[in-house]
């Protein structure tokens, strides 16, 4: 296994080399390319200052040298072993311990390492929140669809998932911001960023006016969540559907009232009907875990609203709540596409295994269908999901470019767009390198997980 890991890591090097080479060639071959002139273009300077600045940039980044030399210099800078770089840009003595150096960003004038250390955790936070969410919901939907193949849930979810997969991330983001965050419609969520300025100075947890308020908050939250979850799990189907529709209609009406006042209009009626249809359909889903998840989310929302209505005075939400509130829309926008894809994959993988010989043997022995599904088929069906997890990370990284741009989150995706737009060579190359490294790391992790999950696979 160790040998395998070493070999894989060694194979990564030429790939990473190729990635940076391609991006470098694109930048060098572009008309205009990158030169000291393009860096100071647009600045209003005296000719002498201009010349001095150009010379400075040329010396610092070696921009007046031929492109292959520039690339070799960059490689030397990032490799942990190589020639020392002097302060004036010339190469010094060969050293074994000089350490990698990603250079200084043209535009920000700061070391790229600092910028990445600032931005990368934010992108990783978004992605690491999305991945468990995607897997949990996708598996729940896929299992339910496969279990009743050709049933109503299967057909409906199939079309809905394909539709969800086709919704462009930017459309979802724009609609979210426009309707749920902007000034004109519901102002439920913040429009931009990851945290409000005030929240940084506040306590970590929410701060309430008095002990009674804390009690009210906990009571209403606990009650509504427990009640809804219990109803979702235990209530008979008819009661669930009517109850769900009723709650949905009430929420739809409240939603309309928040925008246009309490007097009922056609708009109130439409939203109420829409809410009733949606909540009724959710309550009618045959999969219990899915129902419980939806009911729990709804319960938290209703509980918060109830506490507000009962007069619990919240001084401020605190840092944690504020951060979570900012993350809701971006994480949804980032995860729904992958969710649709994975749910379809889970379904087809389960169907394939349910029809396999070993499943038939188990049934023939008299094993009941639940045990066949969970003990025999489910674990084998996870294998394609593990394989796909490797490609999920790159697509999430690409998605975070869009999501971060829409929600003005200062993560690596936004940094990438800015770097490319301002032709910031060092930054573009470093971002390419890091995202390539993350992607290849994802592939490696998936292969290792595959070996752990499937005893037939061994890398020795």
């Amino acid at each position: 296994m160790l040998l395998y890991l070493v070999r894989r890591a060694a194979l990564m090097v030429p790939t990473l080399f190729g990635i940076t080479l391609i991006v470098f060639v694109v930048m060098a071959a572009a008309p205009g390319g990158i030169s000291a002139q393009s860096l100071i273009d647009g600045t209003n300077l005296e000719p002498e200052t201009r010349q001095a600045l150009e010379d400075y940039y040329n010396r610092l980044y070696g921009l007046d040298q031929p492109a292959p030399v520039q690339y070799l210099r960059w490689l030397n800078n990032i490799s942990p072993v190589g020639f020392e770089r002097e302060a004036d840009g010339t190469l010094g003595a060969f050293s074994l311990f000089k350490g990698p150096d990603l250079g200084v960003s043209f535009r920000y004038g700061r070391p790229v390492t600092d910028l990445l250390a600032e931005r990368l955790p934010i992108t990783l936070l978004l992605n690491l929140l999305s991945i468990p969410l995607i897997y949990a919901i996708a598996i729940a939907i896929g299992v339910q669809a496969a279990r009743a193949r050709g049933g109503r849930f299967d057909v409906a979810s199939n079309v809905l998932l394909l539709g969800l997969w086709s919704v462009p991330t930017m459309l979802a983001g724009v609609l979210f911001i426009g309707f749920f965050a902007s000034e004109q419609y519901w102002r439920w969520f913040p429009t931009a960023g990851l945290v409000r300025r005030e929240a940084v100075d506040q306590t970590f947890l929410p701060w309430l006016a008095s002990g009674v308020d804390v009690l009210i908050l906990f009571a209403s939250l606990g009650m509504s969540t427990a009640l809804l979850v219990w109803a979702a799990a235990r209530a008979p189907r008819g009661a669930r559907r009517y109850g769900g529709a009723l709650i949905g209609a009430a929420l739809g009406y409240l939603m309309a009232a928040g925008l246009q006042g309490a007097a009922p209009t056609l708009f109130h009626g439409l939203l109420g009907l829409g809410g009733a249809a949606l909540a009724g359909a959710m309550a009618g889903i045959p999969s219990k875990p899915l129902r419980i998840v939806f009911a729990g989310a709804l319960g938290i929302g209703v509980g918060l609203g109830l506490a507000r209505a009962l007069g619990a005075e919240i001084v401020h939400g605190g840092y944690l709540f504020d951060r979570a509130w900012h993350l809701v829309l971006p994480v949804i926008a980032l995860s729904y596409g992958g969710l649709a894809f994975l749910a379809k994959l889970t379904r087809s993988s389960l169907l394939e295994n349910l029809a396999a010989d070993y499943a038939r043997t188990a049934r023939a022995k008299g094993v009941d269908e639940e045990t066949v599904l969970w003990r025999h088929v489910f674990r084998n069906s996870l294998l394609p999901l593990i394989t796909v997890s490797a490609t999920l990370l790159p697509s999430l990284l690409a998605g975070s470019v869009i999501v971060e741009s829409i929600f003005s989150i200062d993560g690596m995706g936004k940094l990438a767009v800015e770097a490319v737009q301002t032709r910031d060579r060092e930054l573009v190359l470093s971002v390419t390198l890091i995202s390539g490294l993350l992607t290849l790391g994802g592939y490696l992790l998936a292969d290792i997980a595959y070996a752990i999950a499937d005893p037939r696979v061994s890398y020795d």
Partner: protein
Amino acid sequence: MTEITGTKQAQLARPWLRQVLGALARRTGARIGLAWIALLVLVATFAPFIANTHPLYMVVDGRASSPALANMGPVDWIWLAGFFLALILTMVPAKTWFRVTAWLAGVGGATVLAYALVSPPTLTVYEQYRTMEAAGKIERIVRAPIPYSAKDYLRDYGDTGIEAPLAASERHHWLGTEENGADVAARMIHASRIALGIGFIATGIALLIGTLIGGMMGYFSGVVDIIGMRLVEIFEAIPTLFLLLTFVAFFGRSIYMMMIIIGITSWSGYARYVRAEFLKLREQDFVQAAVACGLPLPSILFRHMLPNGLAPLLVAASFGVASAILAEATLSFLGLGLVDDPSWGQMLNQAVQSSTFNWWLAVFPGGAIFFTVFAYNLIGEALRDAVDPHTQRTTMGARQ
């Protein structure tokens, strides 16, 4: 009895492509998808007759003229020629490869002719018709259903800017106007060309590169395969969107550049498919026979092997068109798309650019992107079912 076996044999002897297309046409999802694409093709082809400030027909001082026809550019003529050529070729009984070649040759010829012969006035004054009409100079006029061009910013009205649907008092903008005052419906109609063109041409380029490289890898294997797979891995490990951004930011922003760029960044998947198919196929007898006959390499690769490995490629290409359209929309959305020409993604971007949220700029162009991508995904899904031997057997069984 003999008749039945006769039809059965005819059915079995039907060409594979037609079998697949027949299976495709029986699926509801594919039908909806195909209908939407057909509608888009119609709208894109006849865009100058649907949304145009130039009247289709007018009589001024007793002289009849058609400014719409006179102002049609080479691209408009090429679209019309391509459309009618395709229509004629589907009527003519001929082999598929002949039809495709004839169509490509015809469109190529039309392109040369159009750029040589057609020279519309370079300076278009959109306002002239409205001022002439206001002055009562026009005797008879037939306007397009949407009397605005995509780049007609309605400068003569003075109050132009971003407007909600049907908000303007004296004009009808069914889908509102965008930030420069142009009609959103007209821009969307003209932008359908970009979506369709990008989808087909970018995927075509990607298919070409992917088939060549993948075919080489699968046929030769060995060293070629190892080097080729590294190349595929490199292109897969760079997030495509990021590579696209880099390409577009450093090279120009013309539509042809974008087609090429999207094409050369998305071939790796096709290469993988073709490689896998060719690895399987090259061991088979008919390929060995072709090699033993001493056929030239291109003939073995593309006449004998490729048609047998086409099935997964078709499915992947259908999804590929969807992602190419998405890629263009994303680039335009991030502000790296075309500058002046209308594009759905660019309009979507305007929905949140200004301080207010303009829902009509999000809902209509965004909806158009969604439906187009959805249509291609539906077709891809149906194609996958149609070429999959498992599902095909069951549907055939159900029919008999």
